C-alpha cells in the first residue's frame, strides 16, 4: 500500500469512529439537550474526515479531478447547527425535562 492509501484508510476509519461515537452519544447521554451535542459535533468531524478521504482517493489515487465533496462539507457545516438550533427551540417550547443536575434552568425558563 502506498502512503496515500494509508492516509485514506486512516481518515475513513477515524471518520467512521467519530460518527459512531456521535451516535453513541445519542443513546447514552441523560437528556434531550445533552444528546444534541453528539450529532452537532462528533458527526461533523467524522463526516469531514470521510469527505477528505474521498477527495484524496479520487483526486490522487484515481487521478480524476473531483471537488464535489467540498459541497457536502459546505452544506454540512451550514445545516448541522441550524438543525440543532431548531431541535433545541422545539424542545424548549415543549419544556422537555432536563437531566436533574442541570444548572441555569431559570435562564431557559424551564
Amino acid at each position, binding site marked *: 500500500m502506498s502512503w496515500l492509501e494509508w492516509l485514506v484508510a486512516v481518515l475513513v476509519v477515524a471518520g467512521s469512529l*467519530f460518527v459512531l*461515537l456521535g451516535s*453513541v*452519544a445519542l443513546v*447514552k*447521554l*441523560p*437528556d434531550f*439537550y*445533552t444528546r*444534541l*451535542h*453528539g450529532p*452537532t*459535533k*462528533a458527526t*461533523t*468531524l467524522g463526516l*469531514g474526515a470521510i469527505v477528505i478521504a474521498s477527495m484524496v482517493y479520487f483526486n490522487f489515487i484515481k487521478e480524476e*479531478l*473531483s*471537488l*464535489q465533496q*467540498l*459541497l457536502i462539507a459546505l452544506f454540512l*457545516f*451550514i445545516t*448541522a*447547527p*441550524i438543525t*440543532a*438550533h431548531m431541535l*433545541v*427551540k422545539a424542545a*424548549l417550547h415543549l419544556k422537555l425535562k*432536563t*437531566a436533574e*443536575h*442541570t*444548572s*441555569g*434552568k431559570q*435562564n*431557559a425558563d*424551564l
Partner: protein
Amino acid sequence: MTSIKKWWPTPVRSLFLFLVWILLNNSVEFFHLFFGLVLAWLIPQLIYKFRLVQPGMKNPTAAIRYGLMVLWDIVVANLQVVKLVLGPNKRLRPAFIKVPLDLTDNLSITILASTVSLTPGTVSAEVLPLNASKDEQRFLLVHVLDLADEAELIRQVKQRYEAPLKEIF
C-alpha cells in the same frame, strides 16, 4: 453600470450559484458551463426582489482567518466531546447559560450561533428576549454539555468568536 446591475443584480450570488453548479456536476464540459451560466443569471433575476439586504464584509482576510480558526476549534471540540461522551454520565455538568451579545445584526448573530453550536461543547438554543426591540440588549441562550466556569466560558465565546465577527462585519 445600470445595465450590469439590471442583468446581474447580485453578482456574488450568481458566482456562487455558478460554482455550486459546476461542483455538483463535477465537470467543466461546455454544456455544464453554459447551463451553469444560464442558472446563475436566471435564478437571481427571479428572486432578487425577495432578498433581505445583508451587511457586506468589511474585512475578508479576517473572515478567512476566522474560518480557519473555527475549523481547528471544531477538531478540538470534537475530541473534548468524545471524551465527555465516553466518560460516566454523572460527571457531566450540563447547564444553560446566557451570553450577552454585542452584535446587533441578524447575519453575524446567526454566524456566531452556528459557530457556538459547532464548537466547544456548546449548542446555541435561542436568542433572547424573543421579541427584542431594536436597542434592547440581546442574549444568546447556550446549552453547555460540561460547564466548569460560567464566567470563563462567556469570556471565551466573546473574545474568541464575537470579537473577530465584529471586525468582519
